[in-house]
């Protein structure tokens, strides 16, 4: 399975990317929503996007809107991974088309639980 980790922090991209790689994902990274759209437009379609909210150039919510406006990306699962933890923000992201929401700070187990909920945890990890 493929995951695109979108965060302006290299540290956070590395943390999320390492966990997903351990789960067996092929991982690519993008530093903002625009870079992430560039990856999708290359034809590299992920199963999962982990999306930070506050980023320069194009923020996470704008990215979610852009992806949901493109029928070709309909099968991509979108998960916000962000410090934005107010109910209003969560509702806004889910209404825009995000499937799940993970609040920073999080543990590897919390990410694993979210992936299991989404049916995106590889069998070898579930076993």
């Amino acid at each position: 399975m493929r995951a695109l980790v979108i965060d302006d922090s290299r540290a956070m991209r590395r943390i999320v990317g390492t966990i997903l790689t351990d789960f067996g994902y092929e991982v690519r990274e993008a530093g903002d929503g625009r870079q992430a759209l560039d990856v999708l437009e290359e034809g590299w379609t992920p199963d999962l996007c982990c999306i930070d909210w506050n980023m320069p150039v194009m923020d996470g919510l704008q990215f979610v809107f852009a992806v949901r406006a493109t029928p070709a990306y309909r099968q991509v699962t979108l998960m916000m991974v962000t410090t934005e933890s107010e109910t209003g923000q969560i509702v806004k992201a889910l209404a825009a088309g995000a499937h799940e929401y993970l609040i920073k700070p999080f543990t590897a187990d919390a990410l694993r639980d979210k992936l299991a909920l989404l049916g995106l945890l590889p069998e070898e990890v579930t076993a």
Partner: protein
Amino acid sequence: MTTAQHAQPISLLLDPATVQSIADEVWPSLVGDGEAFVPVPVAPPAEVVSAWVDIVGPWTGSVVLTCSPATARALTENVLMTRPPAVVDDEDVADALGELANVLGGNIKSVLPGESRLGLPRVGTAPPRGRLDDVCALAGQWRGDFLTITVQGTAPHPSGTEVPQ
């Protein structure tokens, strides 16, 4: 109208125990298993570096993380899980310290009343503090080294008006 001058000071909205409880979640998750921000103050170093994020809303100010450059580098090595001979550069330090401030700031924003916006992290010399009562500071240490988390109101602009955000 809610401005930095008219809003309730942070000392009425947040206490150091809440900041500590947020740090208790952030440290093991970002810095590493078993790591902790210990709220026991130690003497400040001669040179410090800060990372901060701004919060703009009913309360406006910054969440500032301050430590010595050496501690910032050690924190970065932990966050990035680097092991010798790998070394971290200044960009890594700015990124990792900024992300720590970002996660602390985002969680602090969530316990403040009303809807607020969080800025992008910045690193350098901490912004000036505002009113004396508009500060919630938690002095402590990580692995015995000086570290503080300060939630501080925006300093009034010299002309007496707020600095545009």
